[in-house]
């Protein structure tokens, strides 16, 4: 990527960004102080594309604000009232359920903190939604509310979270972070929990397998340095737990609040800079959200080219931002979000609470396995009319079944399943002997896994089948399987865990929990069959015009031939994210064969036969 910098001060920062080197506080200030908005945007867009390709995520969600009665009196808030106030309201669980509709995928619950609700009422809201709307994932209660429960009901934070999780809580919103600065907290939010309390709650959630969001409220009295320190604190916590899904910079809405900032509203320039800089500073965050309710649709749309890959959702009731003067309409229909994302040149991706892609709403989408081993196909991929969607292999299969992808690098099992609608290309991801990125971490040797519980990756069917085949056909044992979800997991109940992709690669280097044994499934296969193993193959939708197929195959061949011989260079950025050196990247990628030859075809045939045998036996 070429950037024509108007501001030469940005060049050293750009050099760091391109190689995946972490930015400092000083770098952040250089970015904020630069007038070169376009170059800043291009750099953030570069990182955005490395992480999310052309995808922009949204969710069909609804907000529940169960009450506006609050024991706190925060200056920036004009939502909360005291009990007895004419505008005070409290929703019963039945009323809350009555506002929900079946197509909702995520319910976002935050509200005031009333003095007199019993603990059971909060748990009941989560449980009832989870039971009545099993397809809707519950995202509930900010750290401030969790801390309030902890103090009011005299339970540990862990206990509060555990009970909510048992009731069906999936994730937590990121509100209440405001700005992690004691100076600002004393000025504006002295009743809130502050950085220490906020992180305590979020880290506890991550340890229990509850991923969370994070926020920053900016544009009031904080300094640029305080914003950057806020981001750095989040980055450090993410290094520790990996539990943050997204970062949401929230522009302060002056409205009828007790805060008088220097300017009434943040400028669009400040909003775009803050989005871009958070993308660049938060190198370990998967998503950055352009929260359109506060940014306005127009700025949010531009922000999708400035580092943001997340558009929040359809949003139901949004009283807090609205009462303070947000000018967006209350309800942005799904069609409108889809249009905004398309206008920005991106792929509208409807997601679930964990950012799994459920549907895409544009043409010419090419799926990309978001692992280091697929980089040789995508680094030089000349997109032309195509758009790239990074997506876990199993999800790619599901989208392809719905006809929503033109082409992709498919997990082998998904290709087998859809052979009648896909045309096989001559490229693949196959091993030579070992692979290092399909790993079984185990407390037992192969033959002792009989009857044991194995946590399996949610991301692909092929590796799981390979494990199946190895257990049953090579070692003659049967185990029980349970799906993990991507990201945060508690591994303690599993006798073994199967991981794939960069996660496997990462843990192969650093180890996983207390598992003592590590098996490389490709190695196991090779030692047994003396054949390579084909994990994924390139295939296109049968029904595509021949010209499009030809164009795609030219693009893939060109991309691969440009990548060959330069693996360390093309893999460096991704390698750094998972902790691999240039040499390790080079060695790892050189272990793959990317061209589908005779031996690979033979291996596919053999594996298919074995899979059919175990399927019949089940």
């Amino acid at each position: 990527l070429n950037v024509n910098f108007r501001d030469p001060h940005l060049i050293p920062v750009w050099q760091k960004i391109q190689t995946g080197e972490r930015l400092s506080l000083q770098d952040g200030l250089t970015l904020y102080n630069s007038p070169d908005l376009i170059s800043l945007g291009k750099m953030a867009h570069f990182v955005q594309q490395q992480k999310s390709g052309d995808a922009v995520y949204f969710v069909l969600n609804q907000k529940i604000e169960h009450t506006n009665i609050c024991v706190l009196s925060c200056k920036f808030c004009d939502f909360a009232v005291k009990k007895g106030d004419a505008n005070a309201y409290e929703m019963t669980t039945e009323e809350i359920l009555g506002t929900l509709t079946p197509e909702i995928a995520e319910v976002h619950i935050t509200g005031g903190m009333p003095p007199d609700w019993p603990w059971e009422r909060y748990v009941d809201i989560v449980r009832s939604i989870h039971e009545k709307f099993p397809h809707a994932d519950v995202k509930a209660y900010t750290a401030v509310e969790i801390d309030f429960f902890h103090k009011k009901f005299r339970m540990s934070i862990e206990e509060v979270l555990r009970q909510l999780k048992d009731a069906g809580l999936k994730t937590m919103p990121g509100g209440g972070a405001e700005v992690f600065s004691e100076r600002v907290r004393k000025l504006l939010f002295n009743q809130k929990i502050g950085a220490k309390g906020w992180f305590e709650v979020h880290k506890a959630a991550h340890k229990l397998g509850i991923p969370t969001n994070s926020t920053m409220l900016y544009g009031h009295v904080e300094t640029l340095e305080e914003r950057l320190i806020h981001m750095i604190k989040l980055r450090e916590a993410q290094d520790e737990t990996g539990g943050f899904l997204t970062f949401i910079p929230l522009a302060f809405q002056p409205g009828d609040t007790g805060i008088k900032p220097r300017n009434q509203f943040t400028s669009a320039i400040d909003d775009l800079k803050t989005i871009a800089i958070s993308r660049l500073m938060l190198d370990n965050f998967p998503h950055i959200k352009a929260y359109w309710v506060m940014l306005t649709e127009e700025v949010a749309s531009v922000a999708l080219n400035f580092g943001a890959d997340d558009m929040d959702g359809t949003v139901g009731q949004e009283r807090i931002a609205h009462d303070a003067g947000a000018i967006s309409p209350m309800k942005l229909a799904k069609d409108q979000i889809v249009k905004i994302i398309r206008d920005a040149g991106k792929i509208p991706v409807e997601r679930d609470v964990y950012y799994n892609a459920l549907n895409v709403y544009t043409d010419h989408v090419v799926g990309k396995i978001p692992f280091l081993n697929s980089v040789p196909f995508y680094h030089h991929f000349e997109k032309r009319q195509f758009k790239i969607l990074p997506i876990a292999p199993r999800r790619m299969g599901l989208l392809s079944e719905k006809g929503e992808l033109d082409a992709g690098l498919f997990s082998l099992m998904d290709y087998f399943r859809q052979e009648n609608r896909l045309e096989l290309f001559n490229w693949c991801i196959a091993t030579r002997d070992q692979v290092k990125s399909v790993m079984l971490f185990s407390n037992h040797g192969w033959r002792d896994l009989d009857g044991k519980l194995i946590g399996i990756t949610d991301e692909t069917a092929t590796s799981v089948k390979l494990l199946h085949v190895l257990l049953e056909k090579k070692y003659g044992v049967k185990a029980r399987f349970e799906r993990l979800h991507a990201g945060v997991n508690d591994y303690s109940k599993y006798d073994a865990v199967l991981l794939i992709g960069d996660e496997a690669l990462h843990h192969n280097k650093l180890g996983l929990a207390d598992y003592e044994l590590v098996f490389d499934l490709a190695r196991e296969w090779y030692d047994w069959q003396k054949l390579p193993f084909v994990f994924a193959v390139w295939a296109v939708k049968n029904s595509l015009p021949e010209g499009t197929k030809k164009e795609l195959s030219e693009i893939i061949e060109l991309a691969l031939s440009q990548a060959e011989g330069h693996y360390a260079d093309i893999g460096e950025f991704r390698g750094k994210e998972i902790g691999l050196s240039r040499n390790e990247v080079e060695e790892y990628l050189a272990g793959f064969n990317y061209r589908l030859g005779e031996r690979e075809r033979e291996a596919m045939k053999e594996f298919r036969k074995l899979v059919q045998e175990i399927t019949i036996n089940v």
Partner: protein
Amino acid sequence: MQLATIIDKVRNNERISREEGVELLQKAALLDLGELASEIRFRKNPEPRVTFVVDTNPNYTNICNIDCIFCAFYRHEGEEGEYTYSVDQMIQNFKRAAANGVTTVLLQGGVNPKIPFEYYVEMVERTAKDVPEVMPHFWSTSEIIGMSNVSGLEVREVLQKLWNAGQRTIPGGGAEILSDKVKRKISSLKGTSADWLNVMREAHKIGFKTTATMMYGHLETDEDIIEHLESVRQLQDETHGFTAFIPWSFKRRYATCR
């Protein structure tokens, strides 16, 4: 057609074709386009300086016989809410504006066939004489064609009389989209693209400086937008009379055009 080739052409100061313009409009990534436009902007105006003018935009009448479907302003004669101000009333208005620091008056109104040509000339003369602090930046092309119709004078003669009265610049409104296919749908009574370009050409020949506008985001296609830019570019090659180009997006809130 390769996007990169087009971008290189722009960088090398080579003129891009219509087809290339459409390609840029449709396919270029937002920030690639922004970067390129920013480069050209600084090539033409190297200072990081953005100018503005303190002006006022009064309307002397809302009576209009052109009935553009995107317009929520006009009234027919006799319709409730219609108005026409006298020259005296407008001069008072300009004086108040000048007292508040205004230096330019952008005056436009409906195309009102009941107003005689003398009214317009007098408006310019009185402004030059009574409110010399402000520049009269008056009349869209439609109004100038309207003056030609009420007076029986050629457009060229109308413009010359306005010039003689003291006017030196003309606003670029009324161009909408310089594509007759679209103009027929949104403003069928407003004349053709050639009419707009012709008024501008005649004005530039006399020595007027004018702006050019484009209203987009309604019924036009990407090709129509590029056709518009091409027409304005051609006339600029010929006359060098345009000072600025002003694209504005259609505001659909109160209009009938959907």
